[in-house]
């Protein structure tokens, strides 16, 4: 059997039994269920779930992913001592991390949403976009986590970098953009701001889901610009393409490091 598939299968089997991953799925499910329980309508629940997704998915993928890579170091050395190409080992390790994380997200949110589908008025398109956003954010941040852990040998420092990356991309980035808009409000900032928005996967994921919801007020300045520039047809396609790019680029960075580094 292909080396990649064997390494991937071992990773998936290991994480499928991981209690922290199980807890992650349960927490997501509990959040969704409690939102429905307290009387939210489909749209309201979806907006709340979007916010939870934008905060939790990057945090879990970064922290869990970084810890997982550090914990797997000796096993990786054992794999690299086998007659296997490094590329296959890396691809297997990455997918063995990203797929169980993405599955936990889909199951965690998917089960309550399916249970309440009949009574919910949330548009199906928004649900699909939320699933896409969660899965692609997982892929992107799993890649970032691997890049951090492969770059930084010190576990404590690696974890600090992972938490710093989460803070910057979920909170700090928007604050910086807001400060930029305030400082250069008289300048034509529309194009640079669109570029800046695409430079943050969390913003792209937010805009992707909001384009399918009647929540213009929540789009924010950059989101509104995005919808005006690309409309509701081309906009989601572009956002998904940008998120896919965000999934690929950290993967390539981490792979480059993995192929070159000494273990």
């Amino acid at each position, binding site marked *: *059997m292909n*080396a990649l598939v*064997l390494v991937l*299968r*071992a*990773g998936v*089997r*290991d*994480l*499928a*039994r*991981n209690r922290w991953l199980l807890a992650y799925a349960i927490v997501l499910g509990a959040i969704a269920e409690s939102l429905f329980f307290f009387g939210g309508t489909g749209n309201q629940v979806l907006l709340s779930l979007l916010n939870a997704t934008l905060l939790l998915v990057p945090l879990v993928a970064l922290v869990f992913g970084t810890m997982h890579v550090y*914990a*797997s*170091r*000796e*096993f990786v*050395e*054992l794999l*690299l*001592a*086998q*007659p*296997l*190409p*490094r590329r296959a080992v890396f691809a297997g390790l990455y997918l063995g991390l990203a797929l169980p994380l993405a599955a936990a997200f889909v199951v965690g949110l998917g089960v309550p949403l399916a249970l309440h589908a009949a009574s919910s008025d949330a548009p199906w398109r928004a649900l699909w976009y939320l699933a896409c956003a969660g899965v692609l954010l997982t892929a992107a941040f799993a890649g970032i986590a691997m890049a951090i852990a492969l770059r930084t040998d010190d576990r404590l420092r690696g974890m600090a970098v992972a938490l710093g990356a989460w803070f910057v991309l979920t909170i700090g980035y928007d604050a910086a953009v807001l400060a930029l808009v305030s400082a250069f409000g008289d300048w034509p900032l529309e194009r640079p701001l669109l570029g800046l928005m695409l430079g943050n996967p969390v913003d792209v994921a937010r805009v992707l889901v909001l384009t399918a919801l009647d929540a213009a007020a929540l789009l924010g300045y950059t989101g509104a610009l995005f919808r005006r520039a690309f409309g509701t047809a081309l906009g989601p396609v572009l956002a998904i393409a940008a998120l896919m790019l965000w999934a690929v680029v950290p993967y390539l960075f981490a792979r480059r490091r993995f192929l070159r580094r*000494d*273990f």
Partner: protein
Amino acid sequence: MISFDGLRKAYGARAVLDGVSLGLVPGRVTGLVGPNGSGKTTLIKLLLGLARADAGRILLAGAPTDEDGAYRARIGYAPQSPRFPENLAIGEIVAMLRALRPTATLDESLMDDFGLRAEWATPVGTLSGGWRQKVSLACAFLFRPDVLILDEPTAGLDPIAAGVFKQAVRHAREAGRTVLITSHILSELEELADDVAFLTDGRLRFAGPVSLLLEQTGMRRLEPAIAALLGGLRLATTGPGAMGAGRDARPA
């Protein structure tokens, strides 16, 4: 069988291996000894392709070890601190490693001798360090490799398991395999090793038969002999049929 030729490796400004040349011969067990940080594990990692040398080369059966890793099919490796995915059972790990080398002839005797089959379904995360070491050693011997690289193999093993392991090493030697063992337990190496290679500060200070080291240092046991070397002696050998001399290993 294996020759290290002028290996250099530095991490930053610190030279971990500085021009190490050494030959390992089939049918002999070599004990690689040296203080902590002397470069033993780095030498093993270079052989396995886990790290890349800054200079020098490694030949396995006359062929340079290359990037594609195919040569590693001839090597069995037990690392210093074996760790496996915590939630996988022993049986799943062994099955995975078997699938990675589907054409290899298997030697499962250590699986039986260590009693691993009784714990076949036990997740590795619940095993003690000694049991993990047994799994690691059994996997290293599993494919009847031409070369066995064993880094601190008896760390955490109980006396019975250590005895089983030593017997397996003797069988490997009789079968004409090349065995390289690092250990800080010199009495153990004395039992197993035919040759000894002594590294300090990344340089090979001695390479040759254990008997010659004892003779040259005037000691009866390996431990005081190594202590004598550490005390400043610089010995070497080029005995026929034994190991090739290191570049740094000079006669006293």
